[in-house]
């Protein structure tokens, strides 16, 4: 049996093995409906995040004009932001996408309660470039537990983009439709890092929900775990952003 003949026989075996499919579990209408639902959700998330950013910027501007009373005004604005975040989390339905998307930005406002959580490597001095890094506030914490987790969580993605702005325009990577109601969050992005391309995956697991996903990990402020890893789409190529995964995890840990 020569090589071509054997390849043909192997191909026949593969076709035989893939035969006998059960009836499909989805149709075009379901696909289109799911696609539209995801698109609506993302639009809501973007709109909510934009509103939250405007609110934070507005409050910051007022605080900046405060002059000698700056400290007092900052605390007051922090309370307002905190209340806004609370209202978002407690809004009708309790788990609106817009509210969830607003969470990281709202959380980025100065914490009304007092000392901010420790942030490794984040100590922005006024006027410095690092001052653009949002301060740490209330950690984002678990996602919804009353419905399937969002495998492309807009709130988590907003945080990832803060520490890794290069992925702001990244296309969403393929994800499974497995339903998890444990409150976990995830982001999977098709990324380019110089000549290296691949997928960047960031996962957040609430306390007790971490199943040991491989990757760099750290405990988070809310008691959960953040895990991040990347892999190259080409065998043998370096994984994109491999040297910055640690920074991503360190940045996210106090914010989740």
């Amino acid at each position, binding site marked *: *049996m*020569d*090589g071509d*003949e*054997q*390849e043909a*026989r*192997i*191909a*026949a*075996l*593969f*076709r*035989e*093995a*893939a*035969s*006998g*499919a*059960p009836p*499909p*579990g*989805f149709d*075009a209408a*379901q*696909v*289109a409906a*799911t*696609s539209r639902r*995801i*698109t609506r959700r993302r639009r809501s998330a973007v709109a909510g995040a934009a509103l939250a950013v405007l609110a934070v910027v507005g409050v910051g501007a007022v605080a900046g004009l405060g002059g000698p009373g700056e400290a007092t005004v900052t605390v007051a604005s922090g309370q307002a932001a905190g209340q806004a975040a609370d209202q978002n989390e407690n809004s009708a339905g309790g788990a609106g996408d817009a509210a969830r998307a607003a969470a990281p930005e709202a959380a980025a406002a100065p914490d009304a309660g007092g000392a901010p959580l420790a942030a490794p490597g984040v100590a922005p001095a006024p006027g410095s470039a690092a001052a653009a890094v949002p301060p740490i506030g209330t950690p984002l914490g678990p996602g919804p537990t009353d419905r399937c987790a969002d495998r492309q969580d807009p709130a988590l993605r907003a945080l990832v983009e803060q520490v890794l702005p290069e992925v702001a325009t990244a*296309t*969403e*990577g*393929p*994800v*499974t*439709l*497995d339903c998890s109601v444990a409150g976990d969050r995830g982001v*999977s992005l*098709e990324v380019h890092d110089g000549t290296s*391309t691949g*997928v960047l*995956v960031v996962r957040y697991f609430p306390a007790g929900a971490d*199943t*040991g*996903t*491989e990757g760099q990990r750290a405990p988070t402020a809310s008691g959960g775990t953040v895990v991040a*890893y990347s*892999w190259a*789409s*080409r*065998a*043998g190529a370096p994984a994109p952003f491999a040297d910055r995964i640690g920074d991503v995890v360190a940045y996210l840990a106090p914010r989740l």
Partner: protein
Amino acid sequence: MAGPVRPAEVAEAGPDLVGQEFDAYFRARRDAVRRTAYLLCGDWHRADDHAQSAFVALHRHWRRIRDRDALDAWMRRTLVRAVVDESRRPWRRERSTDVTPETASEGPAEGVATRHVLVDGLRAVPPRQRAVLVLRFLEGLDVAATAEVLGCSAGTVKSQTAHGLSALRTALGDALDDLRPAG
């Protein structure tokens, strides 16, 4: 009969035309995508999950994919990445095994037995090598097209084909005569 719709026409078209074009592609390719997903992951339920995810992603990006001739390659790439990515997760992580479950002798018919033996054997092949085998022998892609889907070199495809077949033969032993090396 109308010819194929050009991308420029689709870009200017309303949602109805986009929907019709997607529906036509979906009808034409659903079964093939499901079969590919099945051999990649070895389970029809998960295969449906992966296939549906890939079609949802395609639907979302439909207007942005300008090269309609590249749709199949886009779907294959999406599907393979999803399955390989999933295989990295611990709760789904696959473990290679030298022992193939003895389903072949229990099959009621030769076709069913072949199906079980090969699918079980494929599970013992590392995910990337398995993807190469599925693309080459089920989808019928040549080395260059497989390399394009996987984003690797032709040499890598050749070596992974050889390693994958070797792993498959090791897993199956003498269960399938057609997998014995040529010569």
